[in-house]
């Protein structure tokens, strides 16, 4: 698709998300609803990734640029926030380490559990097959 049409599709999805949020009252931000809409369109193959690849790769590649102007509003925060910045910096760093550890441990623990279960199932299946084989072989003189 041509770039103007790709943009039109993406913007239409954005507006649909906003409508669902503001008019219908879905309790999620409009842009996140938009993301879910696009995901559904992709999963149902109504939209193919290559249809919108020009626009999607542009936005994904320069993602950080679009957050620069909103971040400038940091100028307007009060002195009460600014005076706490060393504490806030420390908290952000410490919490990130804790979050990585907790998320990683939980995922790894459950994956290992699932793998163990799958291995046991596989082994049980193999044993059963061997037993059945022995029986048929044993039946022959």
């Amino acid at each position, binding site marked *: 698709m041509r770039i103007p049409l790709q*943009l039109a599709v*993406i*913007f239409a999805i*954005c507006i649909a*998300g906003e409508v669902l949020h503001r008019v219908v009252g879905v309790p999620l*931000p*409009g*842009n*996140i609803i*938009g*993301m*879910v*809409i*696009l*995901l559904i369109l*992709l*999963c149902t193959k109504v939209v193919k*990734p290559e249809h*919108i690849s020009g626009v*999607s790769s542009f*936005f*994904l590649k320069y*993602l*950080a*640029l*679009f*957050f*620069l*102007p*909103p*971040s*400038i*509003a*940091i*100028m*307007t*925060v009060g002195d*009460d926030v600014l005076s*706490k910045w060393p*504490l806030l*910096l420390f*908290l*952000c760093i*410490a*919490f*990130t*380490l*804790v*979050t*990585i*550890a*907790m*998320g*990683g441990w*939980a*995922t*790894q*623990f*459950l*994956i290992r559990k699932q793998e163990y279960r799958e291995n046991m199932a596989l082994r049980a299946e193999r044993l059963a097959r061997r037993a059945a084989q022995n029986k048929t072989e044993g039946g022959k003189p």
Partner: protein
Amino acid sequence: MNAIINSPLFGILLTLVAFEIGVLISQKFKYSFLNPLLIGNILIVGFLLITGVSLESYNVGGDYISVMLSPATVVLAVPLYRQIQKLQHFWKPILAGIFTGSLTAMACVIVAGKLLGLGKVLTLSLLPKSVTIPMGSVISEQIGGIPSVTIIAITVTGITGAVTAPAVCRFCRIKHKVAQGIAIGTASHALGTTKAMEMGEVQGAMSGLAIGIAGLFTAVVAPIVIELL
């Protein structure tokens, strides 16, 4: 002169130049903490403070770029869609891991907010700090935080993840590649994902997957969690 400063082109040009300088500096020095967004922010704030141009004048143009946040979030569905096959096998551990990580991030902020007396607005601003910026800034706005504080907190969080992720995984014995990727993406969104991609293909893919799900989960849970405040 006022006519020039109040033209949208002024804010747009300032943003583009500051961002590109940020990219150049971060590429030249290769330190993860020299993030283009962080450098660009410092350059623009510095420029406005020195020249005395008001934030309102800057925003005349800046808003044209900010409005693109919405489509930029929507297209995050594309990498999410590309990874959807990999989700299928380990979907239970992956979802449970992302939920654990996101809840940990929120619980830390709430506990610290209470213990250290950060105040309600600041606590709410920090709450979505592990979520990717387009989602986090909107979540922050919706629950009553200050989006600009959230964006800075998210950036610091992302840079921390990108710098420390391999060491944390080693120290905490998180060896499974899927678990490493999920942990990094959940805690430190797209910025951490850049490091996860360096660690390996599986880690990168899983980290990218975790960004969107952690964002959705936080968007749904954050308004419920703040009722506890």
